[in-house]
Structure formats: structure tokens, C-alpha cells
């Protein structure tokens, strides 16, 4: 898994770092890290429904913030557990944009071992960085 949970901060909440060779890969890793807080086995999420969305923001890190919030929104509004699959991120003038296809299914307690609900993405110690090895993000989810 291209993410790991960080135990040494915000002990009542869940901190993780996620990484990827490209920004798209990183976004997918961070999405899986977020959904993995809520269910024990991501492979149990069948691609039965598709949601297609486009988001824009003035910075790459706030784009990631909004992207993860989108998945949390679908979890409550439509009871959908989604995994991001096809992503395209680009810079458009002074804005960043992401076009995403996410696949998943409705929460089913008989099939999904449920863990803890994610309330929100926090901006406390939220970081998105790039280096020779690719992209990395660190953030804390409120649970």
C-alpha cells in the first residue's frame, strides 16, 4: 500500500502519509488511505457504481483537500464507498484542476467490515510535497 498511518500525532484522530510517482498516483493513494480508515479491506469494495467529478482550486494541496472531501461527501450523502481510479490533474492558469472517475458501492455492513467514520480532512500539519522520488502528502483526518 502506498500509504502508512502515523501514530505519533493527533492521537484521537488519524494521521497518515501517502505517496506516488505522480500527483495522480498520490491522490489515488491518499483516497485509499482515507477509505481504509472506514473499512478493513479495500478489495471488498466492488466497482458497481461510478461517480465522475471535476474539482478546481488555487493550490495543489487544497485540490487534494477537496478531492478527499468529495469522497467523504459521497459516503454520507449517498452511502457510497468509492475508490478513485482514473485521474487527470493539470494546471490551468493560476488554478489546479482534477478530473476523476471513482468506482465503488453502497456501504453494506454484511460485506464490509466497518471501522471508524471519517468526519473531515483537517488542515493541521497538512502538507503536499514533491521531490526526486515523486509526490508525498501528510495529513490528519478527524474521526
Amino acid at each position, binding site marked *: 500500500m502506498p500509504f502508512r*498511518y502515523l*501514530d*505519533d*500525532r*493527533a*492521537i*484521537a*484522530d*488519524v494521521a497518515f502519509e501517502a505517496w506516488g510517482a505522480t500527483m495522480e498516483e498520490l491522490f489515488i493513494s491518499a483516497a485509499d488511505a482515507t477509505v481504509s480508515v*472506514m*473499512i*478493513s479491506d479495500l478489495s471488498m469494495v466492488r466497482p458497481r457504481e461510478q461517480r465522475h467529478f471535476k474539482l478546481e482550486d488555487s493550490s495543489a494541496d*487544497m485540490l487534494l483537500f477537496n478531492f478527499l*472531501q468529495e469522497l*467523504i*461527501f459521497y*459516503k*454520507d*450523502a449517498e*452511502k457510497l464507498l468509492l475508490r478513485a481510479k482514473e485521474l487527470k490533474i493539470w494546471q490551468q492558469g493560476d488554478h489546479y484542476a482534477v478530473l476523476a472517475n471513482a468506482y465503488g458501492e453502497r*456501504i453494506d*455492513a454484511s460485506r464490509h*467490515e*466497518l*471501522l*471508524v*467514520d471519517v*468526519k*473531515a*480532512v*483537517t*488542515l*493541521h*500539519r*497538512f502538507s503536499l510535497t514533491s521531490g526526486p522520488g515523486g509526490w508525498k502528502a501528510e495529513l*490528519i483526518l*478527524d*474521526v
Partner: protein
Amino acid sequence: MTICKGLSRVSETIWEIRPSYKKGMRVPARIYATDKLVRQLDDGVIDQITNVATLPGILYRAFCMPDGHWGYGFPIGGVAAMDPDEGVISPGGIGFDINCGMRLVLTNLTYEEVKPRLRELVDKLFARIPAGVGSSGSVTISQDDFRDLVEKGSRWCIKRGYGCEEDLLTTEEEGCMRGADASKISHRSVERGLSQIGSLGSGNHYLEIQVAKPENIFNRQIAEAFGITIPNQIAVMFHCGSRGFGHQVATDYLQIFLKAMTAKYHMNVTDRELACAPFRSPEGQDYFSAMKCAINMSFANRQVILHRIREVFSDVFHKDPATLGLKQLYDVAHNTAKIEKHCVEGRWRQLLVHRKGATRAFGPDMEGIPDIYQKAGQPVIVGGSMETGSYLLSGVASGAQSFYSTAHGSGRAMSRTQAKKHFRGRELQQQMEARGIYVRTASYTALAEEAGAAYKSLDDVVEAAEKAGLSARVAKLLPIGNVKG
């Protein structure tokens, strides 16, 4: 005595950090803790409470309650009062789960009467009150009705038969914050919360059947004033908030504030989770009105859950709720910002008090608490771990020192990942049942994360609060049944 750099002892349970500790601190930061609790403080608390002390318009001191721990923006347990005219409002000083709070309901049943029916009772509560990831409640309403509900709070529920007028009298703000304005909430927030009225949520949210044993009554007179009059009396306590609706309101305004804070108001904060706007600004007032909607949604959520509790008890014992003495003792919030009147350095004034993971604890004879509790002081409900029990406290006159605020829980001592390594949910459930606590859970992993040993001792927390003069112990309530989110 100094435990860590910058922290000086003021008294047995009061510690202070001077403004010289960090650039930009406008007031000192004060932490309430016993020796034991201060040694358990995590690194984040000191950093975060001193960040709070830098916020524009903060008055007197930034406070951290005895259960304080590392949060985001404010520490959990953080209290800050702002000058409403010169100061800011910050969603990070309230939390994403706006008006997360506690409700305590009494019965006239004893432990001996409930024990034979305990499994049935817990099983039915578990079935009637949805809990866990993305759980939906049992109230189906339109978006227009939801917008009406968030402006009216518990009153909306009473009109539709979910409870009685008397419930309102024992709810903070009588279950409805005036000034809630649904035109200030987003469509997304409505979509997130629409189906969730009457649901517990997950994490540390729970519903518990508890017993008040005679040896755990610390102040008999106040306990009686609160309605605890029978040996081994059974109570029901639950903890939940404004669900996805409140989370989305906070998220929406965090982003609005981030943009306005620098571009429009030329303010900078040390942590983006402290994003804020002048309270009197259009953004500040819009958030205040939207936040009140989330406060009301949370009151309504707990009101519907109370109604379900009455239905289940009535069903199990074949008696109506009144005959079973099912009466709400109090409902109190611990994630809010409210305008209150306080005396600061000899002068009475209106303040905007942020409490994040801290409970309002008004003392006797204060406006804003029910008439029946005027002599006793405001009931304060402090939830403990599911293994060790919870407390009922009362507000005291000396609480003025912290704008009448006290602890809200025990505070985690172990991260969720660590807890999962140490405990197994099913084993824990069996061990608890052997000790007389019957638990139903939406998630065994989540159950392991909430093990008693993952939390600080609530006994230590309420002792610190009492010694510091923030609140006084009335009764300790021990769990016998638990519905875990």
C-alpha cells in the same frame, strides 16, 4: 516546579505559560492538570494552546481543560473567549463535529430490575438507534423540512411527537439556538445530513446504560436535585453530534475563512486549522448563523434518539415512558462558540466563548440554566471510557476563572492504531460481558480502539477539575450496557 519548557506551576492543578513563550501570544495560556495528568500531556497540547493565545481579540487567557489532548487548530479541551467587536471566530475552535454533546436520561428503575432484561434492552437499542460508518437515522424528511429543522432544533422534534416540552427545559439553550439561518448553509451540507437524524455515528460516540450506586454518589443533595434519588438507579447516557451536516458546515467555512483571512482581512495564523475571520465581518456572521444550524441539528439528533430510548424501554418493560420515569436530566454541548456574559478583570461584558472538547459549567443562580437546577448549578455530563464509567458534575461559582468551562471526557492516552495492537474487539466484548457490561457494536475494530486502557483516567480528570474549582463531582455512573458506534 517545571515539567516542560515554559510551563510554570500556579497551584496544585493550575499551570501557566507566559506570553513570552511564543512570538505573537497576546495572553497567557493556562492548563489544568494534576501532576499525573501534566506528565501525560502530549507535545501537541502546548503548541496548540499557545497558538490559540495568538488569535486576534482573545481576552484574559487561553485555557486547556484537564482532559486536554492534541487536536487540530485548538487542542481538544481548548477554551478561548474573544472580544466580539475586536476578535475573531474560528471553526477550528469549535471542531468539525459542531455541538457534539452528551445527554443523560434517568429512569425510576433499579439495577436489580433491569439486569434480567439487559440483553434485550441493549439489543433493541442497538437495532433502533443506528450507529457506525455512514449510518442513517430513522427520520425521513425533505430538504425543505431539514432546513426548517436546523433553524428550530429540538422544538421541531417536539412538534412532530419526538418528545415533550419538558425535554426542552433540560436542554442547553432549550434545544434551539436563536439566530440559526438556513440560508447560510450549503446544499452539500443538507445532502450529507439529511438522512442522519437519529443516528449515533462512530468513533467515540456511544449510548450507555449506567447505574448510580450509592457508594458513587459524592454529593447527595445535588444528586437528589438532579433526580438521582434511588439506590442503584438506572440512567442512559449518550454521546453524539451533528453528524455529516455539521462536519460539512465546518468544512465549507474553513475554506471560506482561509481565503478571506489573508486576502481580505490580512491576518495570518500559525496553523491553517486556526483559520478565522473577524466575528463582526460578513464571513464571521455567516459562519456563526450556519454553526447555529449545526448546533440545532445536533440537539434534534439527540432529541430523536431520546424518543427511541423511550420507545425501547416502553417496549421491553411493557409500561409507558412516564411510568418508567424516563426523564431527561440534561443535554449539554462540548463543541460550540456562543455569546455569553462574563466578568473579566472586574468588568461585565459580552464575550464570544469558543469551547472545543470543553463543557459549559454554569454555577448556581446563573441565567441560562433550568430553574429546577438554579440552586444546584448546571449539570455537567462527562463521558468516560466504556469500561470505566462516566461522571455527573455540577457547575460551581469558582468556575468564573475559566468562563465557566470544564472537562468533557477522559482524553485519549493511546492512539487508535496502538489500541488496535493491544486489544481485540471480540475478546474485549467477552471480557466486558464477564464483568457485567453487555456491549453491542457496529465494528469490533472500533470497539478495540475504545478500550478503557486507551484513555486517561477519568477519575484523575474530574479530580483535577474539582481541585481547580472548575466543577464539583456529583455522581459516578458505571456502565452495564453499551451500544458502540
